[in-house]
């Protein structure tokens, strides 16, 4: 219990620090925010009025407190470019990105676990089969996700016409059409990440296979299958679960790029346009959302880790 309380306390502190960093980083932007919006030919009166309207004349700490209060309620102010509430801008885009991330994650697990186990079951680590698979995974890992996306669009979209590139369907209109279209971006993210997870899982399993308890299990007459699924996998999974936290972070980052490739209107795409147009309230909100998701997921992974391996909370290891 003490362990959980401590973890939750750390989580709150971290979220607080991160929100502070996100706020103050955008305070040190060179050049005046107001001039960015009004343009350089604005009269001093106009600038002053705008500053007053945006509340930029108050001390920075007061503004941070206000911003944080609103942010907790989900209110991130008004977008410079679209002149609408940032929250309403994000409302229908956030589910898109979350769906993409979730689908990618599910695909990663479905692709990499069987492959990782299969690879770890290779008779002779370091043998020819092992080396070939190793090089293959190395090559897949070398493909940048956006290029993989382009290749998938070219082969499956343009040549084989399995899907219509750029023909994104909103989830509010047609749920199955949406899922069908999102499958391809999700596969794109999943393939490059899976190569990494497969390798990680395989290394972890190989290491476990050398443990003493494996020899004991064999000497007691267990079959290789039983040893793998009953003993090795359980222990070999533990580091992989922590690794999944990193994977979620990478999937979120990957979706920023892949949304661009497939013209999926998620928060990643909005983030990129907002950065180019210097629409800071939107950038701030999106960064905060993504960072929060990553932190929360890592928190959950920590908890899961503790369940899988009770040694952690008792201070061993």
């Amino acid at each position, binding site marked *: 219990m003490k362990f959980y309380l401590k973890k939750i306390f750390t989580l709150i502190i971290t979220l607080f620090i991160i929100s502070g960093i996100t706020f103050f980083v955008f305070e040190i932007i060179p050049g005046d925010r107001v001039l960015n919006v009004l343009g350089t030919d604005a009269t001093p009166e106009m600038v002053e009025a705008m500053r007053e309207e945006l509340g930029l004349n108050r001390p920075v700490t007061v503004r941070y407190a206000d911003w944080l209060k609103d942010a907790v309620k989900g209110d991130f102010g008004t977008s410079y470019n679209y002149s609408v509430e940032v929250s309403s801008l994000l409302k229908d885009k956030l589910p898109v990105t979350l769906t993409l991330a979730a689908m990618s994650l599910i695909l990663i697990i479905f692709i990499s676990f069987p492959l990782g186990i299969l690879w770890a079951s290779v008779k002779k680590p370091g043998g020819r089969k092992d080396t070939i698979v190793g090089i293959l995974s190395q090559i897949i890992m070398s493909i940048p996700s*956006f290029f993989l996306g382009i290749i998938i669009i070219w082969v499956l979209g343009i040549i084989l016409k399995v899907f219509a590139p750029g023909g994104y369907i909103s989830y509010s209109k047609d749920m199955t059409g949406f899922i069908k279209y999102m499958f391809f971006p999700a596969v794109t993210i999943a393939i490059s990440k899976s190569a990494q997870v497969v390798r990680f899982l395989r290394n972890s399993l190989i290491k476990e296979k050398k443990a003493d308890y494996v020899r004991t299990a064999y000497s007691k007459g267990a079959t290789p299958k039983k040893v793998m699924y009953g003993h090795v996998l359980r222990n070999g999974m533990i580091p992989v679960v922590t690794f999944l936290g990193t994977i979620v972070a990478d999937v979120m980052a990957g979706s920023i790029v892949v949304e661009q490739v497939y013209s999926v209107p998620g928060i990643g795409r909005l983030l*990129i346009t907002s950065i180019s147009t210097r629409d800071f309230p939107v950038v701030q909100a999106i960064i905060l959302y993504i960072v929060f998701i990553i*932190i929360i997921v890592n928190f959950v992974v920590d908890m899961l880790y503790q369940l899988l391996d009770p040694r952690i909370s008792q201070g061993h290891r």
Partner: protein
Amino acid sequence: MRKNKKIDSFILAGGLIIVILMLLSLIGFFYTPYEPNKMDAASKFLAPSLKHFMGTDHFGRDIFSRVMKGLGTTATVGLSIVVISGTAGAILGLLTGYFGGIADEIIMRICDMINGFPSILLALVFISVLGSGITNVILALGIIYIPSFTRIVRSETIKYRNYDFVKSARLMGVGSIRIMFVHIFPNIFSTFLASVTVGINNAILAEAGMSYLGIGVNPPAASLGSMLSDAQAYLQSAPWYALGPGLTIILMILGFSLLSEGIRRSSC
């Protein structure tokens, strides 16, 4: 450490790829088959041929010449990033690992925090504050990758800190700085080198990704990432436009990862 004199096959293959690509990019600084930014309406979208090895793009520019230039940009950016982060990371890692204490605790906490987030996300924050452009990309990624090097060098330094040869050097009155750089660092160099090659890869991938998103290298300068984003619009009529720069990136990353895998394999 070295058991056999035979060079590892991974190092050989990776090194060969890198040397060829580096030569191409070096030549590209002085000579390219065609002027990389010269537009020629008459030779728009030519398929790969003997005259245009990778074909031509929507402005009739020779893609191979542009890939050579882009390779130079990407390599320069990647190397600059690693020089910044590698140097800073090595120094920080040696200091924190050797001395420990509160400073070590604080620095490692900060590193953990930075490491917890994907580098491209952090780079986007930097870019949105500083503005896009090649120098800012180098600066942003250079800072962001410092923790990864710090962590590796630090843990290795801790390992060597208590070795007898370090202790006896200390007893002989060798200064801390000298112990760190002359006695400890050469021992952890191969581990450091392996992480440098991984670092170059990450830097190249991040730079290409950001240029693809249009917030890295500014046009008309050639960059492999921005070429791909241009190429995507013409995938239907000129698929080779994407293949040239794309395959080059893959080859480059493959080369460095083979190299790092080989270094790791042969050093332990």
